């Protein structure tokens, strides 16, 4: 273990490099994201993820945000275990009728001000599951949505980009 830890100390960081203004989209996004987040919410933004019926593909890519390449927490963004600690609900999936009540309760448990981000094509309008007897529709059929991030599933960078767009909108409208 000491060898592994030592290697981690001396090797180059895996985290995508800091931005040159013209490229390195990820780190550039990250810097802008942090600035807006600081202005509207102080130093951090807490995110509660809710799977309302997803196939679990979106969750895999949301998980990837935490790995060393994306390192979400360097931007002050972090996932929290309870909606009561959250500023943002990140909702995936078509909302199944069996999850509708749980999503409503999670939304109601989140303190104001709060934003809802619908992640993935299913979360927009139900995607390929729309019209099923078991599906209520997209996330906006159940709770108000501030932003949709498209993709099936959206790659981690796309999710980051979406959070940035939300913050810019939120800073103008509510901040």
């Amino acid at each position, binding site marked *: 273990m000491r060898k592994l830890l030592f290697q981690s100390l001396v090797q180059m960081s895996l985290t995508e490099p800091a931005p040159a203004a013209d490229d390195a989209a990820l780190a550039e996004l990250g810097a802008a994201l942090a600035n807006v987040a600081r202005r509207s919410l102080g130093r951090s933004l807490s995110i509660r993820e809710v799977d309302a019926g997803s*196939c679990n593909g979106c969750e895999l890519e949301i998980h990837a945000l935490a790995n060393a390449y994306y390192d979400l927490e360097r931007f002050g963004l972090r996932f929290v275990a309870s909606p009561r600690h959250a500023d943002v609900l990140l909702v995936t999936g078509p909302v199944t009728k*069996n999850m509708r009540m749980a999503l409503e309760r999670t939304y109601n448990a989140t303190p104001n001000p709060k934003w809802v981000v619908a992640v993935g094509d*299913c979360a927009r309008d139900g995607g390929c599951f729309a019209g099923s007897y078991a599906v209520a529709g997209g996330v906006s059929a159940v709770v108000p949505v501030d932003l949709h991030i498209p993709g099936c599933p959206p790659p981690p960078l796309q999710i980051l980009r979406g959070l940035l767009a939300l913050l810019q909108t939120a800073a103008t409208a509510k901040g």
Partner: protein
Amino acid sequence: MAGLNELLRKGDIAANHRPWPRARVTAEIWQEAIAALAGGQWQLLGLWGEPDRVHMALRDESDETIAVVSLDCPARRYPSVGLHHPPALRLERAARDLFGIEPVGLPDPRGWLDHGNWDVRHPLATAPDPAPIDKAYTFLPIEGDGLHQIPVGPVHAGIIEPGHFRFTANGETVVRLEQRLGYVHKGIEGLMAGATLEAAGKLAARTSGDSTVAYGLGFARAVEAALGADVPPRAASLRALMAELERIANHLGDFGAICNDASFALIHAHCAVLREKVLRAAQTAFGHRLMRDCIVPGGVTADPGSEGVAAIRTLLADIKALFPALVELYDNTASLQDRTVTTGTVKPHLARQYAPGGYIGRASGRAFDVRRNLAYAPYDKLGFEVPVLDAGDVNARVWIRIREIEQSLALIAQLLDGLPQGPLRIDLPQASGPCEGMSLVEGFRGDILIWLRLDAGNRVARCHLRDPSWFQWPLLEAAIEDNIVADFPLCNKSFNCSYSGHDL
């Protein structure tokens, strides 16, 4: 007791069912099959309904016979399998919810996928009932001094899928876990009915996101079986390449997450990096990080080309350079082993009875892997080992994953070395009348069974997708008994059952 082949001879063999036979049987023969299941001679691979019929897929291990037996039930009643063979219990509850076919004698009257929220009862029956079932749900009764209950879910603390766990504990010790699933039921089998192959294929690839390659492969193979089509050799090899990449990505994720649930974050961080490398190589080779929709009936849609092959070779070298140190660290960290060894044990007799696929079965002595036992191309021409252990604990499930990662790396090297040239896809023939196909493929989690019937014009008339988790979730209830509540996340992650694949 006679073999499954002998039982089939007493039935009426359905025409146009491939590759394994399907026999329509009488209620007496159905009972014989139940007796063989209950007696442990055969294993249940699946049980699913139609509006006036019930099917079960069976495996006779003695001569590796696979078959489907079907019982017509015009009165929508049939003798319950679950009454004598518990692994069928939840499948029968699900088929009752969807089709309204009643398993006579089934000891559990409660809904399973139906929570009373659908505005309709028996949505896939010929004539659905407009009155929904009662929303009330009664958990199994508990009696005893000092017991308390802990309800968890459906929304969990982590970034995971929704489901409800009802723990009954005595102090710290779990005396019973009861699961309630069905929260992410999307009605996939209902949407499949009448769908084109393209639409149905997209649904199949979205049944369980972490197994999108395996489901795409299973659906394509079932369609190809029904139509009697063979895919080009290059397509078969690329399919296997994707399937092994998916297996490595998921096993790496699980290995790290299990260690993380034992509060050992270092392995988790390194595994997450390796997993990301796999997804990036997949993006380069196939144009999608999870390789979704890359497998279609008739072949594959993406070719890695020389750039993709090079990316995968680099990936293999990276994993081979970094992974052994993580394995050594796992093996030599006593505080981590203290959490995983003898925790969450699945006893071998339960593994025999429930026939769970994947690392759960293979960690408890069940030597079954579709790639070897019912080998499909190209695995019939590749060399690999199927690791099997007997301990059945979290540690054994970790080691099976480690060994399978090593095997998959070797398989990918073989696939790249012998990648055939040629077309990626064929045009499928049109079905002239109803035809049925079935497939079993080895996903990272275990064997996925897909059964379908196509109508003339290649529309899907009925498609059933059976996730490996159906026979794994119930074993988690058994494995957690006498463990402490705090070890549940560890046990659960070592199973990593699918919610979406199970709920459909």
